[in-house]
């Protein structure tokens, strides 16, 4: 990929991001920048206990404090609906998952550190904070369920007293009998126990929400830090507050990063919306960073046992995995589907493994809810697969690249039906592997290992061949799997009378550069100036509908919806042109921004057609409406399947266990690229997060459920000096089922990077004379050093 900005502003041009002009000048408009006349401020009293009965809450002193407008507790909110989850998973026995109520304010019990117990609203933020300290909660601390295995044991403390235990569901996928049979006949079986470490998302902008209520019209408005304002309107309006859509507007202005954590509907959003109507004043809440640590949904947190069966030639015969997945104390919006439909279904990876079986027990614990975080389920699956394949290579003495190659799905096998429900449309995995190995000089690794050894360092190389299912998702498929909503996307393309275009998209942008990429698509398709296209998103009052941004779906689903709407514009334009040019509609072609009578020099420019549509003096009014504006809803036919090979080299300091990433090479197949520079930026960000997970980040709770990694002094975010200069390139097999041939690129780095890095560390240690099968993430100096001591 060449990331230099180019002059091509159409599809394939590395146009500089237009949104950066306001972001880099500090002129973005975030939720916290919005202030409404008469606004009040909310502060939440949060539980300091992981688990406690609440015997009573004394709010009298707080309510009497200076400036206080209201103090709310569950006593006031108990008739409000619980925060819903959007996905229902069924257990092996056909029973639906356990779905305990998630009250907006704790009702009778607090179930994790940070669980909101009371809401204090005052004229100033400070007064609210002062008053919050005057709220006295009579807590009766209870034993907490923290470790997943312990939480499932008999007699474990129960997170929800009204449930039989802490099991949410016990799900399975795949043909267990076929897998057992394959294992029985295997020449070699590799076994591994893995932990996918729990992460705290840490978007740079903390969550913020403002509720506003117009008592004359009865309209509620919520300004919120969301990746999907329409989803919030749907969930909050229909399930929590019973407000019909036409009386509820949700605005998500500039949003400073989400990484999944701002998909979900949070109690605070519902509470400010509700409270604003109660007190007839706008109510604003902005999270402090420590609040973010204990109230934003966390990510990952899986414990897995995996087994891979191989024949004597190193061909994979079968894979089986058994996973415990942490749900935290309540089910967040997407939580149930992450370890199931975004995880189990990915276990084929790039390989033609004929039989796969996966079972997942989801567990309630007294911790913050766990939900989608960049990659969501797919990093966990990739970590299992790419670690166990590496370990199998080590055990059988086959080069890890060679073992992968032997098992890869071949180009002629597409469309390829995996044994875990997905059908891959296209790909060329071996070509991407070859490109990565060449670019990373895999063949020259031993020489570099020697150089490092001469400097007293252990060098290792690690591969990861990931696949992801993104562009989520076909509504009928996800519906059959338990989704309670569709996963299409909507777009309106409005052509103004003078020919400029405004696009309203349901794909929210919070760092992805949609305003640039989408404008490139439209300008390319319509043959008009890139600067004549404006992208609008993030307001339910403007955009027709939208399912939002996650699962690398923006270009593949949101972009496709825009392309479909543009197609409709062109189709209508042809009708208008046919009338003006006195030709048959079938004779009109649209090329380079002009409607032409095929085979003649008679044409009308796009601008002529736009003007005619709005000044319809010469117009087929009897058969065609004036105006030029079209809406499309696009529901994808399949997931898209980006895939790639990552090659990581590390150096380990044998004295301290310190790991340094020496080089990182990523070759990705994202299908067609709209803006290669933005794609490269997405890969860099994803890699940084993937390396962060593998090397630095770790959410730690103690046995009592106290969050030990609750600030940046203890939770280590990756910084520029932790990372090498990334080498990235791409291969292209165009997606076969969406109009742009695109696959999406937002999550790849976070999915593919962790196993490449851990494989490299294990390779370094074993190359240095140790004998280590696996190392859990993050590979901190202490952990690596301890591994070297024991083996």
């Amino acid at each position, binding site marked *: 990929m060449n990331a230099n900005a180019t002059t091509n502003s159409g599809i394939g041009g590395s146009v500089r991001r237009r949104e950066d002009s306001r972001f880099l000048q500090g002129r973005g408009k975030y939720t916290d920048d919005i202030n409404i006349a008469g606004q009040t401020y909310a502060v939440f009293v949060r539980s300091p206990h992981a688990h406690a009965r609440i015997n009573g809450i004394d709010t009298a002193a707080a309510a009497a404090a200076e400036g206080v407008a209201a103090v709310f507790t569950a006593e006031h909110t108990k008739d409000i609906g619980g925060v819903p989850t959007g996905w229902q998973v069924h257990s092996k026995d056909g029973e639906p998952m356990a779905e305990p109520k998630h009250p907006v304010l704790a009702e009778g019990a607090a179930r994790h550190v940070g669980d909101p117990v009371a809401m204090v609203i005052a004229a100033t933020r400070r007064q609210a904070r002062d008053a919050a300290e005057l709220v006295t909660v009579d807590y009766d601390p209870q034993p907490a369920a923290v470790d997943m295995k312990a939480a499932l044991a008999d007699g474990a403390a129960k997170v929800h007293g009204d449930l039989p235990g802490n099991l949410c569901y016990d799900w399975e996928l795949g043909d267990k009998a076929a897998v057992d049979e394959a294992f029985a006949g295997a020449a070699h079986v590799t076994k591994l126990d893995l932990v996918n470490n729990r992460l705290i998302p840490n978007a740079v902008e903390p969550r913020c929400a403002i509720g506003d209520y117009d008592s004359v019209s009865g309209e509620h408005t919520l300004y919120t830090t969301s990746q999907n304002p329409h989803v919030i309107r749907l969930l909050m309006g229909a399930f929590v507050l019973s407000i019909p859509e036409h009386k509820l507007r949700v605005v998500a202005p500039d949003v400073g990063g989400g990484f999944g954590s701002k998909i979900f509907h949070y109690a605070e959003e519902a509470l400010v919306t509700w409270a604003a109507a109660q007190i007839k004043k706008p109510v604003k809440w902005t999270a402090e960073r420590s609040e973010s640590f204990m109230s934003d949904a966390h990510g990952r947190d899986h414990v897995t046992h995996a087994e891979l069966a191989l024949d004597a030639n190193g061909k994979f015969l079968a894979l089986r995995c058994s996973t415990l997945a942490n749900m935290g104390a309540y089910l967040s919006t997407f939580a149930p589907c992450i370890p199931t439909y975004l995880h189990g279904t990915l276990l084929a990876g790039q390989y033609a493994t004929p039989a796969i079986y996966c079972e997942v027990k989801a567990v309630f614990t007294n911790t913050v809810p766990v939900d989608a975080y960049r990659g969501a389920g797919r990093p966990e699956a990739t970590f299992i697969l790419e670690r166990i394949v590496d370990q199998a290579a080590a055990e059988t003495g086959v080069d890890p690249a060679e073992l992968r190659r032997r098992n890869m799905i071949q180009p002629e096998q597409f469309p390829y039906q995996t044994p875990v429900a997905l059908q891959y449309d296209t790909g060329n995995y071996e070509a991407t592997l070859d490109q990565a190995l060449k670019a990373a000089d895999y063949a020259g690794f031993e020489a570099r290992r020697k150089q490092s050894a001469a400097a007293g360092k252990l060098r290792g190389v690690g591969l990861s061949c990931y696949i992801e299912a993104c562009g989520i998702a076909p509504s009928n498929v996800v519906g059959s799997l338990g989704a309670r909503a569709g996963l299409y996307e909507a777009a309106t393309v409005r052509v103004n009378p003078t020919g400029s275009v405004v696009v309203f998209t349901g794909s929210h942008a919070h760092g992805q550069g949609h305003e640039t990429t989408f404008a490139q698509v439209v300008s390319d398709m319509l043959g008009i100036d890139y600067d004549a296209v404006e992208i609008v998103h993030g307001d339910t009052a403007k955009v027709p509908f939208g399912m939002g941004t996650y699962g690398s779906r923006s270009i593949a689903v949101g972009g496709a919806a825009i392309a479909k709407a543009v197609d409709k514009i062109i189709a209508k334009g042809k009708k208008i042109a046919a009338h003006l040019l006195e030709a048959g509609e079938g004779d009109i072609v649209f090329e380079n921004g002009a409607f032409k009578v095929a085979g003649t020099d008679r044409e009308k420019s796009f601008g002529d057609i736009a003007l005619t549509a709005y000044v319809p003096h010469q117009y087929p009014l009897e058969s065609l409406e004036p105006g030029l504006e079209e809406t499309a809803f696009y529901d994808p036919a399949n997931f898209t399947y980006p895939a790639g090979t990552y090659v990581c080299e590390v150096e380990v300091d044998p004295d*301290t266990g310190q790991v340094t990433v020496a080089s990182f090479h990523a070759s990705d197949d994202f299908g067609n690229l709209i803006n290669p520079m933005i794609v490269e930026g997405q890969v860099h960000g994803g890699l940084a997060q993937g390396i962060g997970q593998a090397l630095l980040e770790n959410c730690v709770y103690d046995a009592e459920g106290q969050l030990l990694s609750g600030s940046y*002094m*203890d939770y*280590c*975010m990756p910084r520029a000096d932790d990372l090498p200069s990334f080498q990235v390139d791409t291969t292209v097999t165009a997606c076969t089922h969406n109009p742009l041939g695109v696959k999406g690129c937002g999550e790849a780095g976070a999915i593919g990077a962790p196993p490449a890095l851990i494989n490299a560390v294990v390779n370094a240690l074993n190359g240095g004379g140790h004998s280590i099968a696996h190392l859990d993430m993050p590979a901190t*100096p*202490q952990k690596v050093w301890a591994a070297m001591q024991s083996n």
Partner: protein
Amino acid sequence: MYDFNYHRPASAADAAAARKAAADGVYLAGGMTLLPTLKQRLARSSDVVDLAATGLTGISRDGGAITIGAMSTHDSVATSSEVQSAIPALGILAGGIGDPQVRNRGTIGGSIANADPAADYPAAVLGLNATVHTDRRAIGADDFFTGMFETALGDGELITKVTFPVPAAAAYAKFANPASRYAIVGVMVAKTDGGIRVAVTGAAGNAFRATAMEQVLAGDFSAAVLDGISVDADYNSDIHASAEYRRHLVGVMAKRAVREIA
């Protein structure tokens, strides 16, 4: 942050007086530690006495010692040509504290008064046998750090400057906490007039001297003599480093410092 009275005295004497007059006063230096605790309402003071205008800055060399004003920022120490030429290890230590923002605000006086078990400066004070000067007296390094966040400073006692005798040679090796970048273990080794000194920070409740190492190094100043020497201390243990790992790192960092000198 709770309300407090703010003072900005123009001299050390006025600062000490303002602090004494306050019901529950606190000095403010760079604010890197104090302000977050106030903001998070973990601490509350009736009066904040800002030392910014007291003139307690300046780095000078007189004879065999470098004197650093208490309000000198980490960055000013790191970039001081006096420090770089006389005690390069001290400049390197200061330049390795936190990040640029922290180095531009945080001060030597604040760091030493705060006596965070993971702070870097305590290793320098102890390893280089510095003297801490206050508005009341001079305190020798060996008497200064008394416990976790505890020092010999009396109530309201103000650090004015720190004097570091110039050693024949010194080196500082730090193993940083990847998140905070404070020291998990930091070791200052110095050849001083009074002999070899090895000071360890980060490992235990407060900085301490590894006397077992000092003794063998006095006989043979080489990294090899440190093999097998395990320094006993009441080691800290946390999510980043166990006591055992810290004990190991003391050895590794000490050897690195010795190797750099030798």
